[in-house]
């Protein structure tokens, strides 16, 4: 992770980076949700983003697969720049997986159908092949026995693991996690984090928005702290948790680490 400022940003940096954000700005009407965001994520790098609610963390990662669009600046994912070009958006989305806070599984499809839908429709994979792939990922998130149930019959932790498997079925090179454990009961958080730790070990490029600081300490290569629509601090975990440069970071850490 190297913090990029606009003037030091060169093309070579963009080529090697999996994700490259340059001076990204976004407004909702008059409200500015992102201010001059600069961030580069290397292939295989694990980035954990934290910060108070409303600081723009979710907005930032939702811009990376164009669920939101930025009004100014550049976002380059795997060498493809995100613009209004629908082909580019499609290409980026099939490379980038996303896991949501509220799972967003399709309630009218069985788990296996949730997993095979996109591989069959987007990757044009035969059904048998897609199902074999899906079962493989269900085994990796350790719930193959739930394949023929509906999402409504599963616990929250199981649903989130299915959601992770659904993203993995598109064989993405990058995974985005938007507060994946915030909607879960405490006893289910661990089973989801375990799956994410496994993914990290396998070398997946990940950006994780979370308040799970234990998880951050274990897997993060880089910590990003956001506040009031800006990136305030980018640091390695050992520096971030022991001697952060910015006092806003210190204040935030004091608040969430007191308990």
């Amino acid at each position, binding site marked *: 992770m190297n913090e990029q400022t606009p003037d030091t940003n060169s093309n070579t940096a963009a080529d090697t980076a999996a994700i490259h954000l340059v001076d990204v700005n976004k407004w909702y009407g008059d409200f500015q949700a992102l201010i001059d965001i600069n961030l580069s994520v290397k292939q295989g790098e694990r980035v954990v983003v934290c910060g108070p609610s409303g600081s723009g963390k979710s907005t930032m990662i939702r811009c990376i697969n164009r*669920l939101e669009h930025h009004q100014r600046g550049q976002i380059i994912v795997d060498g493809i720049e995100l613009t209004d070009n629908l082909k580019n958006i*499609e290409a980026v*989305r099939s490379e980038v997986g996303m896991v949501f806070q509220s799972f967003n599984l399709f309630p*009218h499809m069985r788990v296996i159908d949730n997993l095979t839908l996109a591989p*069959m429709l987007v990757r044009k994979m035969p*059904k048998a092949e897609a199902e074999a792939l899906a079962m493989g990922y269900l085994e990796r998130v350790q719930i193959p026995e739930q394949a023929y149930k509906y*999402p*409504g*019959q599963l616990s929250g932790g199981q649903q989130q693991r299915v*959601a992770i498997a659904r993203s993995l079925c598109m064989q993405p090179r990058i995974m985005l996690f938007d507060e994946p454990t915030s909607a879960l009961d405490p006893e289910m958080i661990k089973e989801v984090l375990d799956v994410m730790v496994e993914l990290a070990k396998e070398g997946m490029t990940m950006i994780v928005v979370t308040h799970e600081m234990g998880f951050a300490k274990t897997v993060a290569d880089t910590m990003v702290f956001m506040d009031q629509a800006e990136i305030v601090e980018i640091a390695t975990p050992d520096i971030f948790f022991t001697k952060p440069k910015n006092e806003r970071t210190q204040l935030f850490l004091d608040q969430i680490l007191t308990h």
Partner: protein
Amino acid sequence: MSDISKPEDQARTGGSFLYNQGFRSIAYQVLLGGVLAYLAWTLYANVNANLERQGIATGWDFLNTSSGFDIGESVIEYSAADTYGKALLAGILNTIRVALFGIFFATILGVFMGIARVSKNWLLSTLASWYVEICRNVPVVLHVIFWGTVIHLLPSPRKAMVPFEGAFIMNRGVVMPFPVYDPAYPWVGAAFVAAILGVVFLNKWAQRRREQTGQYISTLWAGLGILIGLPAAVWIAFGAPLVWDVPALRGFNFQGGLQLSPEFVALLIGITVYTAAFIAEIVRSGIQSVPSGQIEAARAVGLRPSFIMRYVTMPQALRVIIPPTASQYLSLTKNSSLGVLIGYPDLVNIGNTTLNQTGQAVEAIAIMMVVYLAISIVISTFMNVYNRLVAIKER
């Protein structure tokens, strides 16, 4: 108090069977049944006594006597010499005719307007919301009277508007060319039904093939080809018989062709436009009832908008859309009775005439009620079956 045991507690609150839950629920039902039976008997006895005092004989014999009145338009052959029974049948068929066309057009218009309202196109969604707000907030009676008035303000047959060659719109209704019947046509119709089955099989085959090979085959053009090609082939095999019956102005009126009376057109437009506004709202709310997270998740795995609509949004929206739409179909059918206001010879119109001429009020009203009940039950049965077909499982 700990020395007082439970049974004694119950005894203190009164062990009488009057406080028994089971006894009470049965007692209330017996009471309600008794009251209803008494009311029904009183009503029956009262009606009988009054009819007897006025010297009106009850019975269904009037159905077999000649009606002596003419009907403006009828699906079946009918003249004043025919019986009341046949007159009522003509009325029933007119009601069914306007209801079926009304349901058909209201569905198309309503679904279009409902999708338009959630469209990102500002002009389209604004126009659609104006349409909905205006049409559903004006009573259906006014819709029907409005169109009944508008159509009579149209030019006379001699100055009729001509939307295309051979078709005329005027204050006497709408006329347009219509093919003259030929023995080949039933076969063409049968070929069309066969083509529909063919398309169903084609889609099944395409889906199986997609599952096996992953290749997505668009069946749109092949399907359209079968739908048009097969009936066309049968038609050509019969020597392509086609003679247009073109309406022509003779004297003050048009003769020949397909003739739609001003009453039919006005009633159809009135109830269609009114009901479509409600269906539009049902469709809109159905689409919007699908959480935005569902669409985001589908976009995030790279699905195209058309696939999202088909595999994610619509299956979840339909379960919200179908039951209230069935109610709208029932309303439309019953609202078609407002045709009586503008002189459309529907069941209520003819039923009223029959009632006035024969004095058989109880029988005439009973026939009307039973017919509407029967039509409504048929519609709701169809819709329930359809609902079960598209119902999605979540557990």
